[in-house]
């Protein structure tokens, strides 16, 4: 049976004034001192000297050191042995953090249980025996918090106040009697995260005691009017509240909790916090059990608030079931966390789930080294295609292909090379590679098996030429059928090749003729050649040397409108000698007069 052990401490007025009258053996002096310091009870003067002072009880909760807490009740006892008013008795129970965790770190739950079982005492004799009390956890847990019906805005305000109470440096004031306040606190504690619960000290009747606690209570009675500044004041009976503070935008988590709480979902929230706590503490089994029982909205919240921890734990525990349940929410960052577990990675890839595949593909383009994972790309067609699409969208991340090229030969196939080359071609206008990266990629490409298809040869040669752009690459490119390339690329290559030929010092004519013969689109060839010659800074003599071959090529063009245009251009570029002499004479003679004379 899981149990909670409680030590006891009584603070009351005896023969020597207030003192620790009785306590469980082993309670150290420092612990007693803290308990004494927090066991205070004051009444307003008007009630102090009344013939029938109220017998209000109060409940307190506070820390004792880092690993223990006190849950106590103070009872007003009227006058002491000397007839002085202001006599009271405190019965404190000391619980370890470990045990309070069994009760979801909800001290009010424990208080209600202790009250219900009449375990709080009103009298004590000095030195009386105080044994440890052991409670069955299940029994205490039956004290389920009674839900409070509050509107969402108020719940949100309360939660924001609680979550920021350290920053705001003021207390929350609750107006009501002790029972109302403790019921409210029981419910409130179920809404706030575990990390906050242990620091939310409270005192349900804190008249005259200053802001010692995060949450203070006062009866809703004019006698208990007290000045002070509070971050929030809430009257539990009327639900009226006052408070204004600025803590910035509401987090989605708090907003969601407020939403659920406003629909009386306190139990769901408590379970959510409990699951989160188990997760954070590394109790994966406990976490899974609670997570499994949580409604989807709670699951969403848990995942949103603990994403990294959850994914890390999933990967560490190879929890395929949970991983697959989260598939729709995974991001490249999550994949990064899962990636050390290759089995899980393969599982995700094997799902073939489009979104998952795209996310994994996107992850491949994140900065970290992925070389160990590149073989995965070849295990799934979907992943390979998605990866290439991703690369096309991100030319700046093209360096990933350099790494890919190292493993590619192990998985080589013509289809894969074709798809890779098409991707590279699409990237080429914007690709960002260093010289070394380009060289490495080229080396990999040229080391591929000799292409069986002309198209692949052209593509490969073209990509190599575009990556490194030297004459050797151009020569190789010209050996290939560049007409298989996309028109824009083809046009660009042709232009580049023609410029090189015209500028070269060798046998230009032969090179031009060879290229012409190789080029399927003769008209494009002719246009490009004229473009080059028209703007070329080649000396006139050189141009003249190309006159014959240009005119011959132009004459060989098929008839058509474009051919006519080309011929006119060629005629202007290379006028006939007679025509050119007439033109020269005309210029020497000057313009004709009106009557035709010069």
């Amino acid at each position, binding site marked *: 049976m899981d149990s909670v052990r409680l030590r006891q401490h009584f603070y009351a007025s005896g023969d020597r*004034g*207030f003192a620790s009258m009785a306590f469980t053996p082993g309670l150290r002096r420092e612990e007693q001192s803290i308990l004494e*310091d927090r066991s205070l009870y004051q009444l307003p003067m008007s009630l102090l000297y009344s013939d029938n002072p109220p017998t209000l009880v109060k409940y307190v909760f506070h820390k004792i050191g880092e690993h223990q807490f006190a849950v106590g009740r103070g009872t007003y006892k009227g006058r002491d042995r*000397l007839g*002085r008013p202001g006599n009271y008795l405190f019965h404190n129970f000391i619980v370890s953090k470990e045990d309070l965790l069994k009760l979801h770190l909800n001290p009010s739950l424990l208080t209600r249980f202790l009250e219900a079982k009449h375990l709080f005492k009103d009298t004590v004799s000095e030195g009386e025996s105080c044994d440890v009390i052991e409670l069955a956890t299940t029994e205490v847990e039956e004290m389920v918090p009674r839900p409070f019906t509050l509107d969402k805005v108020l719940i949100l305000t309360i939660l924001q106040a609680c979550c920021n109470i350290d920053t705001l440096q003021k207390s929350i004031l609750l107006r009501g009697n002790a029972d109302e306040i403790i019921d409210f606190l029981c419910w409130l504690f179920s809404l706030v995260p575990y990390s906050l619960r242990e620091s939310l000290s409270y005192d349900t009747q804190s008249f005259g005691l200053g802001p010692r606690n995060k949450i203070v209570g006062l009866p809703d009675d004019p006698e208990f009017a007290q000045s002070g500044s509070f971050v929030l004041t809430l009257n539990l009976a009327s639900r009226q509240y006052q408070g204004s503070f600025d803590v910035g935008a509401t987090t989605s988590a708090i907003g969601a909790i407020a939403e659920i709480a406003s629909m009386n979902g306190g139990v769901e929230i408590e379970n959510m916090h409990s699951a989160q706590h188990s997760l954070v503490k590394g109790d994966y089994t406990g976490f899974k059990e609670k997570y499994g029982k949580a409604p989807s909205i709670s699951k969403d919240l848990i995942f949103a608030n603990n994403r990294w921890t959850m994914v890390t734990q999933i990967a560490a525990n190879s929890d395929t079931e949970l991983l697959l349940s989260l598939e729709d929410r995974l991001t490249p960052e999550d994949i990064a966390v899962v990636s050390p577990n290759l089995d899980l990675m393969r599982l995700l890839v094997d799902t073939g789930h489009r979104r998952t595949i795209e996310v994994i593909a996107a992850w491949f383009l994140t900065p970290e080294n992925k070389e160990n994972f590149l073989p995965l790309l070849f295990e799934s067609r979907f992943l390979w295609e998605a990866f290439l699409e991703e690369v096309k969208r991100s030319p700046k991340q093209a360096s990933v292909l350099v790494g890919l090229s190292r493993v590619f030969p192990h998985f080589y196939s013509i289809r894969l090379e074709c798809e890779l080359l098409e991707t590279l071609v699409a990237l080429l206008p914007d690709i960002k590679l260093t010289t070394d990266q380009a060289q490495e990629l080229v080396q990999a490409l040229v080391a591929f098996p000799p292409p069986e298809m002309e198209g692949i040869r052209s593509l490969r040669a073209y990509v190599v030429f575009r990556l490194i752009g030297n004459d050797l690459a151009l020569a190789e490119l010209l050996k290939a059928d560049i007409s298989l390339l996309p028109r824009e690329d083809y046009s660009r290559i042709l232009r580049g090749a023609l410029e090189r030929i015209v500028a070269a010092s060798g046998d230009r004519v032969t090179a031009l003729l060879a290229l012409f013969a190789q080029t399927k689109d003769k008209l494009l060839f002719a246009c490009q050649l004229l473009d080059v010659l028209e703007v070329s800074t080649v000396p006139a003599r050189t141009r003249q040397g190309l006159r014959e071959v240009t005119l011959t090529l132009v004459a060989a063009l098929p008839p058509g409108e474009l051919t006519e245009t080309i011929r006119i251009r060629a005629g202007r570029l290379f006028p006939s000698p007679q025509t050119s002499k007439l033109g020269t004479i005309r210029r020497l003679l000057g313009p004709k007069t009106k009557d035709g004379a010069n």
Partner: protein
Amino acid sequence: MSDSSVPSKVQRMKCPFCFQFHDDSTTRCEERDLEIPQRYIERVNENVPVIPMLAIGFSGHGKTCFLSSLFHYLLEGPLSHKWPGFNWYGLNSETLNRVRKDYVDRMQRGQIPPPTPGMFKWEDGGPLILELQNVPRFVRLRFGRWGIGRQDVIFLFFDIGGEACEDTEKILKNFPFFQEFNPLTILIDLTMLIKEGDEKVSNAMQRMHQLMNMIYVMPPEITRTQDVLICYVKADRMWGQSHRFGPLAVKTSTEDPTPDKIPAYLDEFEDLEQNRALHLWRVSAFLQRAQKQFQTSTFYNSFSLGL
């Protein structure tokens, strides 16, 4: 900023809360999170002396009543007639409110104050800070002579519960600046001790020894520079019982002295015959301890509820 060493020209103000020296421009004690009253700062800078007052004693031995009676006397008594120019001021609103509400009004209504909490509650605003003006004091007169003159004095009154006095550790925890209280006042209700002894609740001598022990463990380097006033309270319960209380049973004059009669008035209290009362209870060790531990020891008796 604080510096507990001898203050330089700049650091002149001793904080009434933490007793560290603060810069002149400081208006808040960071250690206690309390505003230093502006009037206090001004008056200290005008060299008005500051005297912290603390009465210690067991629970129920009349510390709060003692203070209530003192305040009542200061505020409502005849001193303003007897002492020319005498006046009093609360240097912050907390003092004014608490002196009236928690001490004087209760006393006037004949209400016994509730037990004072064992740990000093700083959140109530710290000590009560009262300035008394034109108080007759021994001052250095012209030509190097000492005599009764008039002086303004700021008093800091601390009230602590009897539980704190059950052991020195608690006192020193409450007041790490213990050496600032000079004189230190110890209140003893002999009648209660005897009563408890008679009822076998506790042994009177044991309680006196406990008190002695408490004094004994106070750091001697602190107490050697302190004066102690030992005051037997609830004197009305001792009157007429000379067989038990010796000289303490004698009801002394309650006539308030005018300033010129104060020296004679004070001389009365140096009558060592009062000490014999202690011998009656065979607790001379207590007397000897007090005399050895403190710079000077003086014995009084008081009747706080006498109006």
